[in-house]
């Protein structure tokens, strides 16, 4: 489904991503690990259209989407979460999730060239039955997604997101991504800053997604989770691929161990395991 070839991105002197190849097949669960600054998030940005690569290509479903605009990638069914959380603070939890469903609007966003925007404006003002029905269906679906997080989010669905706890904001991120009904779901450290119970809960949820056959690309520092869920792991350091393969193989790869020992912060993560 996703084919990345020779992707590279430099920031001034730093080469954040240096020629990464990556394939993700339909229904596969691939994780990306690597010490801080390895270039994982940058790789995500390049694949989701937020940043343009200096070299290399990205194909999604056989279509070349190298340097495509993020809107287009979203429309193709690619959804991502952000490492540091980018929920819409002044929007309610439910509205946050509904924004995720934006690409699924059909009746409200007629695919007419040139005059489409005007028509969309007019439809929003008139609100014909079809638009209303669609909105109702999306709302119901969004609530279903919120329900996946138990009663963490559902009771707070009408509260503005800025008032949520950190963990809850991460959950909203994921709920919003799910609302896109993504063909490929990309998550950047979904459990960052969560305590153990919360992490376990999140792991359950992600496992559930995998069980449903969701194609997933995950960046995660918590190796236990990576090992349990992944079909395949890509390890990066200094923008390069240092290992790739089944979780167990990557875990015991000397290059990976070396990279992690070289970085104090990840040494702790290893020790915590």
């Amino acid at each position, binding site marked *: 489904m996703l084919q990345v070839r020779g992707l590279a991105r430099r920031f001034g002197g730093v080469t954040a991503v240096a020629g990464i190849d990556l394939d993700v097949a339909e229904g596969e669960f691939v994780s990306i690990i690597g010490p801080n600054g390895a270039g994982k998030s940058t790789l995500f940005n390049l694949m989701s259209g937020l940043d343009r690569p200096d070299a290399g290509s990205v194909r999604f479903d056989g279509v070349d989407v190298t340097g495509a605009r993020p809107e287009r990638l979203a429309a193709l069914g690619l*959804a991502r979460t952000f490492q540091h959380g980018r929920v819409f*603070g002044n929007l309610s939890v439910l509205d946050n999730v509904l924004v995720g469903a934006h690409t699924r609007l059909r009746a409200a966003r007629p695919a007419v060239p040139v005059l489409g925007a005007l028509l969309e404006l007019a439809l929003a*003002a008139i*609100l014909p039955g079809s*638009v209303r029905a669609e*909105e109702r269906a999306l709302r119901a679906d969004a609530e279903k997604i919120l329900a996946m997080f138990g009663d963490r989010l559902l009771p707070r669905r009408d509260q503005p997101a800025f008032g949520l706890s950190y963990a809850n904001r991460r959950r909203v991120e994921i709920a919003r991504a799910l609302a896109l009904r993504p063909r490929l779901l990309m998550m950047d450290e979904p459990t960052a800053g969560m305590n153990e119970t919360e992490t376990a809960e999140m792991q359950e949820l992600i496992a559930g997604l995998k069980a449903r056959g969701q194609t997933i690309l995950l960046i995660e520092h918590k190796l236990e989770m990576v090992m349990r869920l992944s079909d395949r792991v890509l390890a990066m350091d200094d923008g390069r691929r240092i290992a790739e393969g089944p979780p167990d193989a990557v875990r015991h790869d000397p290059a990976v161990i070396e990279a992690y020992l070289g970085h104090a912060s990840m040494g702790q993560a290893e020790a915590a395991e």
Partner: protein
Amino acid sequence: MMLGPWLDYTVNGLIIGNIYALLAVGLALIFGVANLINFAHGSVYTVGAYIGWASITFLHTPLPITLLLVIVGCGLLGIAIERVGLRALHGRSRIAPLLATIGISLVLDQLVQLICSPDPRALPNQLGDRRFQIGGGTIGTLDILIAGIGIGSAALLYLFLRFTKLGWAVRATAQDQDAARQMGVDTDRVNMTVFAIASALGGVGGVLVGMYYNDIDPNMSFDATLKGVVAMMIGGLGNVPGAIGGGLLLGLTESYGIALFGSSYRNLFAFALLILILVAAPNGLFQRRRETPPEPLTGTFVARSRPVRLPPWLVAGAVVVAALLPLTNQPYLLQTLTNGLLSALLALSLTLVAGTVGQISLGHAALLAIGGYASGLLALDLGWPVDLGVPAAGLITAALGTLLVYPALRMRGHYVSIATLGIGQIVALVILNWTGLTRGAMGLTGLPPPEIGGFDLTSVRSVYWLVLALVVGIALLQARLLSSHLGRAWRAIREDDVAARSYGVDANRYKAMAFAFGGFGAGVGGAITAHVYSYIDYQTFSATLSILALTMVILGGLGNIVGAILGAVVLTALPEMFRFAADYRMLAYGLVLLLLIRYRPQGLLGTV
């Protein structure tokens, strides 16, 4: 060859550019550290000129002492602005400090006017004027001093920033206030220092320029701010050496513009250059492309707030009361309210664009001008009946407004504000200079009154009802749009356009839709205003009205529909209510504004 005049134009461009550079350096310094466009900078410059004038006139000080007094006076003023006006707003929202500087500027200008009288004053050049022949013209000692102070202060600043501890702290703060604070930098002190330096520089600029023209008056601040901001923008926001380059380039552009097309085109050239730079090199000419913006935790653009939910019966009741008001015989009240409601049409449009979509437009009054001229010209030149012309003007404004703002759609934050400020100025200047179509400075006279189905609405009562109906209609429509997926998309763009785009919300398209809808309402408002006044010219809808509209929107609460109407009515009525205060009323207005920003930055009814 005709090299002679071009040398002169170049020299002249550099001379005026020098002055712009001096202004821009102070603005850039403050922006670099506080991430704030200081709209009070021009006022500080004016205060500096007046301190200089007072010390020369009353104390008979020689030049070095005069400058010293100005430096001390304006430095203290800068500290006061930071300490009293801005510090408390820190971390509230990015818009609050910007507005506060607008409020401060209003207060300072009024104070200068009250204390020193509005008359222009002569500010004698203490340097003695020796002139040197260059090409066909001359430059004087003062020109050289201004250039020296501009470049010298930039050099000193550079050394200060590079090689002193406080300078290091300033740079650290400029990079990241929070990180700097965590590293033990006293950011408050840094901000204060920066305001003191920048203000002292601004004040010195004011005296020197005042001496240069031998003419100072309390109204010189707006132009100074405007040109300073443009120059800074050309050099790159917050780029101190860039500001000098920006100032000089702006001066040269104006000078060559005059050379090619005549003096009434100079500002057109200045603002066209601004837009060009914003589109082609948004980080200024002297900076490389900035990388993807850092990820914010949540939207920080508008103040976080829970909007006040007004019970529907209350709103409905207010509308009924408003509709019944004309039955009491109070024409003055009605006229004031009509003015308020006409402003509300502008405020509704702006609250959508600035509040809901987060595109802080500083040139919104241009939409009124387009609407007014469109409807007026349709009536005068094509003989259209007014009731046809007004909606047509709304459509024309929607189309033209969206088209004009098109270059600004892909910009973010402050860039949008400055671009719209420039576009607004361009519209006014085109109206002024396109004499063939708009009758130029003469304005449109003899516009017919508003009409419905052939009946002229001449009484204040009927116009009031018409405008009230329009406001209610557009407000309802806007509320409906906000509750649809459009409202969601718009607000998502405001909160975090990167995240919104990642979820398929085509930011440019939705911004354009907001400008189109907003343009329609504002265009209709401008058209009706034109017909009620029977006369408009390019100053009827001036830049100050754009700023006023923004304060209305903030007062009501960004994006808040009822708030925008309330803000418009209150801010139209407030100066009327302060009439008893006569000379002091604009001062009172400015103070009320400052208090509001300080104690209720989310506005009366809260951000939606």
